[in-house]
């Protein structure tokens, strides 16, 4: 169960008191700027500047546990709160309401993330969701509909993603089409940096949670698709942990 983050003020439970509605998460950043002390190996490498960009992390499928890593490489991420959903649990003394926040984060240029967090307070939920969204940032592969002219603007091929019963299919579109989609996937695609796209969906798209996850899965599949231009053999490079093993060995806390 999504437990509240340790640094949670015990605001009374129950209805969402305090700032209601969906606060635009934008202003939240730039809080107390305390120095980030990395805990994971990857964190240490990033802080020391040994890793050049997110793509290196993606190449080796390294799990990202500290959101500051993402901040370091992608400082211009914008977040969008898709929905605050109150969910309830029945207790002997009535219902216990918590708020589930869906946050999509992206830099409109090839990186998106989706975070879902449940918490007793709206603000905490949003904050937590933003962090989780950062941790789940994924690269988006864009391609062309027709002639490879200018920058890639659409999905490279037809991709689909499914979550629950909600299915979302993305289809390449010619330049200038714009995003032909429902408001929910539209926001996600905008933040991903896809300018033109046709979409089709199926299933209970009303369940926003599943629908958003489905489009996220579809976008993620763009890099999972083997297209002919990827047929050539890959030149394997050393994994970061192996390459920087000396550096990592030195910094042993305890």
């Amino acid at each position, binding site marked *: 169960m999504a437990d509240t983050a340790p640094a949670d003020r015990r605001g009374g439970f129950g209805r969402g008191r305090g700032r209601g509605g969906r606060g635009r998460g934008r202003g939240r950043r730039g809080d107390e700027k305390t120095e980030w002390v990395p805990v994971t190996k990857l964190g240490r490498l990033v802080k020391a500047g040994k890793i050049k960009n997110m793509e290196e992390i993606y190449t080796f499928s*390294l799990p990202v546990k*500290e959101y500051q890593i993402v901040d370091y490489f992608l400082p211009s991420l914008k977040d969008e709160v898709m929905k605050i959903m109150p969910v309830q649990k029945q207790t002997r003394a009535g219902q216990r309401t918590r708020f589930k926040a869906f946050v999509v984060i992206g830099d409109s240029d090839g990186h998106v993330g989706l975070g879902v967090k449940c918490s007793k307070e709206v603000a905490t939920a949003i904050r937590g969701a933003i962090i989780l969204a950062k941790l789940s940032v994924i690269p988006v592969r864009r391609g062309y509909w027709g002639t490879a002219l200018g920058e890639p603007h659409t999905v490279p091929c037809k991709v689909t993603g499914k979550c629950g019963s909600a299915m979302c299919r993305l289809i390449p579109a010619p330049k200038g089409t714009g995003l032909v989609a429902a408001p929910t996937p539209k926001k996600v695609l905008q933040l991903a940096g896809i300018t033109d796209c046709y979409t089709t969906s199926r299933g209970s798209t009303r369940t926003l949670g599943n629908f958003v996850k489905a489009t996220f899965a579809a976008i993620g599949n763009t890099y999972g698709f083997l297209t002919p231009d990827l047929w050539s053999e890959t030149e394997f490079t050393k994994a970061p*942990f192996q390459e920087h*093993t000396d550096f990592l*060995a030195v910094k042993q806390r305890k």
Partner: protein
Amino acid sequence: MSRLPTILNATEQDLQMLLAAQCHLGTKNVTERMKPYVHKTRADGINIINIGKTWEKLIFAARVIANIENSQDICVISARPYGHRAALKFAKYIGAEAVVGRFTPGTFTNYITRSFREPRLIITTDPRSDFQAIKEASYVNIPVIAFCDTDSPLQFVDVAIPTNNKAKHAIGLAYWLLARAVLRLRGTLDYDTPWDVMVDMFFYRDPEEAEKEAAAAAAGLEGKEGEVTGEWGGAAEADWALEGAAAEGAAGIAPVATEWNAQASSDWADDGAVGSTSWADATPANNNPGASSWD
């Protein structure tokens, strides 16, 4: 299978040790993936493991381990008590870390846990009982080397070393051989000299046995030692005999019984919590090569 330099071949002595420790005896069940390693099923249902393959995989695993530059990035795991001592000794001689006993879930995935660590490779005694470690390794891109019996599931295991992982001598010997192979590949040991660390150090000891030894040591009486060592020695005598077959170095079986007993006892002394000073005095000035190697 693959063509390796002949120096990496199993020697006659190695194979004898494997057989003496019963590393070749599997269980009555066989997993699909372990079928290639089974030589044959005995009349009573026990599957016999192909020792040649055991050796090959052992060397393969040793090469993987030796390739990790920083040995502290290796984690040895054993939930089952029979493997505790072996895992700890292995870690000590290789320079790795050992996680023995209960594997706290989240050790690899949760950076908040006190026992959080990020190894680059893990070695496990049994995929079935160390499943938690193997599962977590799958979340964090960590390759897994495992000592697998015929009934072991190989899911997420990258290098499987087929061997008996139920018997204490088998487990101890397997770890000992692996440690020796890694040290040889690293260049710390050479292939001609037998390793002066004895296999017995890797065997599991019953707590009562350990207490008895400690008591005997404290008493410091030769007679008592003889009695205790004889008991224990009897069980492992087979290994001793084989080890000493080459008859060289510290592990060599001296024809003199007392020397042998004292040697055995002196090993324990260093191992046990007993102050070695009393031992040094108690041990006759035989100038045991075994004792000296321990200091």
